[in-house]
């Protein structure tokens, strides 16, 4: 029995180590991606935590694939979208309020960044996700579509409409 326990423990330790090595390096990237979509640090942390938990639960099968990073990104993006939708459907206002309240807090940001942030918050969630993926992380439309679970044409539409809103909000229309 003791021998069996030790074997299992060693196996689990290796599993954890493998998880740490593979997923750990993605945590910061996932956080900034979630933050760029949700614009709320607490919600972004929740999104990444949930993503990591799901990854851990699926690690036995996930670790055998060569697309862990993409899997994590897809789960995180979709969690962000569905989370936000869930909160809104429940009439949950704190996201918007904290956005408004929190935007001037980082006074180290340049006025340009603050203006962009204010305009960016006007975008829909999917517009933010599409823009973040294509602009912030350099994914192609096809890749972004796979990550968001929609067609490439839909991604292009989200990006185009998002940019139009940014132009309007920034006075470039």
């Amino acid at each position, binding site marked *: 029995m003791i021998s069996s326990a030790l074997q299992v423990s060693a196996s689990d330790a290796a599993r954890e180590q493998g998880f740490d090595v593979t997923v750990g390096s993605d945590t910061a990237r996932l956080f900034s991606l979630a933050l760029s979509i949700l614009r709320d640090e607490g919600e972004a942390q929740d999104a990444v935590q949930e993503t990591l938990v799901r990854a851990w639960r699926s690690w036995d099968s996930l670790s055998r694939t060569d697309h862990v990073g993409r899997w994590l990104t897809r789960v995180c993006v979709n969690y962000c979208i569905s989370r936000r939708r869930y909160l809104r459907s429940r009439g949950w206002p704190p996201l918007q309020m904290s956005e408004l309240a929190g935007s001037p*807090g980082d006074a180290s940001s340049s006025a340009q960044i603050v203006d962009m942030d204010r305009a960016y918050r006007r975008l829909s969630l999917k517009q933010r996700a599409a823009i973040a993926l294509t602009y912030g992380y350099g994914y192609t439309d096809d890749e972004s579509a796979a990550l968001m679970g929609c067609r490439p044409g839909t991604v292009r539409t989200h990006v185009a409409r998002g940019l139009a809103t940014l132009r309007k909000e920034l006075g470039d229309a």
Partner: protein
Amino acid sequence: MPDVDSRLDRELRSFLDEIKAQPLPQPLADFHPATVRSGRKVLNVLAGTVAVAVIAATVTVFAIELNGHRGAGSPAPAAKAGPTSTPKPTPSIVTDSSLPPGAKVLIPKTYGTGTKTLPTVTLGPNEGIWIAYSCSSNVMPFNSIFVSGRGVPAFLAPNIQWWLHQFTTPDRCSGTLPTDGGQGGPLTVRFIAVRPSVTWTVAVYEFPSPAIAVSNPPPSSTPLFPGPTPPFLYAPAPRGAKVLVKITYGWGSETLPTVTVAPHLPLVIESGCISTSASADTLTIGSGDPPFDGSMGSGRCYYGTGEGDSTGGTVGSGAGGPLTLRVTAAPSVRWVILVYEGGGSTSQWGPPT
């Protein structure tokens, strides 16, 4: 890549780079989904032989948790337990004896695990909040309670975060967090746990605050604020005083407009500040004018709760003259300042000659 003009392209990339540059929050850096399944791991290995012991332990945990809930009336629907939560006794809180007069329940006792946001409530004008809390962890990094929304009763900050490090017992935190009143409005309380396994209890009360409510939120830059006396300032300028710098809000470093101080009149600088950063909470008020011979203010803004101060002196050894004040603070420090001369507080620096 979509067609986009160069300016928008540049600004958008700069903005997204700014987000990318944000550091990973420590609780997330410390988060490890594997650490919350140790019980399940043991169960897998020893299932056949120690099942009875596991069941007994489960019953014990349940009994302890049930005991922790006893006396709390009907607890509000607990925040949804995180998928990684580990059963632990939920700490109980004792609050009734210390509640301020007139306190009413705003958020009933709520039990939770891990980081959770409580339902948004609306706080009335001039109402302070009194948060009673306890949690099952009291070691660094500390858990925290984060309050956000327009109803946050701290006028200088859009939100408040308290780090729960009141040491009562080695393995749990417990305490209360009072605030002054504010303008009222929606308010959201969030418990931020450093680990998903942390269990906690939070109850929020509202009570009539002696602080004066203000009618407008802080401006986004540093214009003059037209409202009545905000928190942290002792009082409006006394009768007979001449206001040189009206109540002004700002954050970070800022040079105030140059004012001319009359001869032989004491100058009074009232200020208050609050910091949204634990590591940067110093406010310094100085002047580049050598003739200013009073003491300049330099104080702590006490992360989350704020602090007020009053200082002063004369200009030009009593001869008066121009004075330019500069507030020096980190961007995370929000401040309010009021400067006046004359009035009733002449004794501290001697009467006019």
